[in-house]
């Protein structure tokens, strides 16, 4: 059962979806372009019996997330690129300690303090382990406000299922735009977490920790979390295909860029070119298998990103040389237009044998 809410901003819709998923603790520090999330949480979360706290920094916020998650509460934070950088140490600890939590990164341009406009330059940081050590975040990249709602709602279940941080990788465009949404109904009873540190007096002591001094014990810890990643690679790979069936060329793009590319692909189809779109939704685990399968019958893939080229490396890994991969990117907050992408498609199309 869902509830139609009319038009909502991406940021607000995701905040409401989190509340309906049972999120009862939010810790964060303001930064554009995601401020509507803490704003929404500050207004609504206390009324629903939860806690909203503006921390003194992102470093503090992520450690509060660690604590609340350890106590078994559904917890989240949100930020944008420079703020997410500050959270990396905490994320590494949380992944090692196997604490479920949800992180929204509404990416802005970087490096540095950069700018407040949309970008996709945090792909490497999100998917390859932005903090130290051997760990992964489950990373999901929505393309529409509705998908952002659905993914946010589900992210809390996935975080609990794998006892691992789930990152939702959006950008300023997704956060600031409005679309009509249907919201899922609030979750009811949530199962107790048998590992959570909920206070003394309930039997065996429970310890949440990320420090394992003995090599063999630490190695086993790492192997244990990697068994979960192997499971994710089996069960959580997601992608969308658009007009791929008879396509000779594909555009590969994720998030907001993918929907801009979709318009370019539709225009290319109108001009008689056999073009499709491949949109990874889970960035980790990445849909390498599907991509390899498609690449075998393609003449080329054009990767488009709002970065200087990050996901394109995973595209190449997936393609395994089966077809040429080219890249078009805008950066610094500049958004590629459908016309620009179409020009790239036409150039690649005209070079086909």
């Amino acid at each position: 059962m869902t509830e139609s809410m009319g038009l909502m901003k991406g940021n607000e819709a995701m905040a409401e979806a989190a509340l309906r998923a049972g999120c009862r603790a939010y810790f964060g520090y303001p930064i554009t372009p995601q401020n509507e999330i803490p704003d929404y949480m500050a207004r609504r979360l206390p009324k629903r019996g939860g806690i909203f706290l503006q921390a003194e920094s992102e470093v503090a916020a992520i450690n509060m997330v660690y604590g609340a998650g350890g106590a078994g509460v559904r917890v989240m934070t949100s930020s944008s690129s420079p703020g997410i950088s500050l959270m990396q140490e905490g994320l590494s600890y949380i992944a090692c300690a196997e604490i479920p939590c949800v992180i929204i990164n509404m990416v802005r341009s970087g490096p540095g303090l950069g700018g407040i406009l949309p970008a996709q330059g945090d792909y490497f940081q999100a998917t390859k382990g932005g903090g130290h050590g051997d760990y992964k975040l489950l990373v999901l990249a929505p393309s529409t406000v509705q998908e952002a709602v659905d993914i946010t709602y589900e992210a809390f279940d996935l975080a609990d299922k794998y006892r691992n941080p789930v990152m939702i990788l959006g950008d300023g465009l997704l956060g600031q735009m409005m679309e009509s949404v249907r919201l899922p109904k609030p979750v009811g009873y949530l199962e107790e977490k048998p590992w959570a540190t909920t206070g003394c007096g309930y039997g065996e002591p429970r310890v949440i920790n990320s420090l394992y001094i003995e090599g063999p014990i630490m190695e086993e810890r790492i192997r244990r979390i990697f068994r979960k990643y192997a499971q994710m690679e089996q069960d959580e790979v997601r992608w969308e295909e658009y007009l791929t069936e008879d396509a000779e060329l594909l555009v590969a793009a994720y998030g907001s860029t993918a929907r801009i590319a979709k318009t370019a692909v539709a225009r290319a189809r109108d001009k008689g070119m056999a073009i499709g779109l491949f949109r990874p939704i889970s960035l980790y685990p990445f849909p390498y298998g599907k991509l390899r399968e498609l690449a075998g019958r393609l003449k080329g893939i054009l990767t488009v990103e709002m970065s200087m080229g990050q996901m394109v490396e995973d595209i190449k890994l997936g393609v395994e040389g089966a077809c040429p991969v080219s890249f078009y990117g805008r950066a610094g907050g500049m958004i590629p237009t459908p016309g620009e992408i179409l020009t790239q498609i036409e150039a690649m199309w005209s070079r086909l044998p």
Partner: protein
Amino acid sequence: MEYGIMIAGFGGQGVLFTGRLLAEAALLSGYQVTWYPSYGPEQRGGTCNCSVVIGHGPIGSPVIDRPDYLLILNRPSWERFAHDVDAEGYVIYNSDVVKPSLGEISGCPIPIPASELAAEAGDERVANMVLFGAFLGLFGQIPTDHAQRSLRSLISPKYENLLNIDLKCIDLGYGYGKNPKDST
């Protein structure tokens, strides 16, 4: 079929509000809708724009590179966006403040004396509503009562006193948009 509508002007002229109103009215009329504001340094520096895409299927790009309709409230916005308009598109502009040399754009210019009409309705600041009305008249697929309903639900209590003026502005603009030849 998707339609890209851009609204551009100075901050404070109701650019984002007009876009929101259009988006809500289109939604009521059965369209799928995206609304995307300029939220970057340009907004902070004064000029502001907003992109609304409406269509009968899922919307692709919320970013518009060749608007079908462009609503212009100031001269800098003409200079920046008028040339991007689709060859079959329309540039609806406040001719009281924008005096372009015509023939320089590919779309069809629709001059509207929006400040004058807004003043006639009771407040020359709401020229944005006149242009919005003109768009409705020209577009012809969003009933004015949907626009009126959306306006009533969106207007903040602070501007409640402008509601009737806004409604009148929409009506005045609608007439111009419906019969654009009469206005030139």
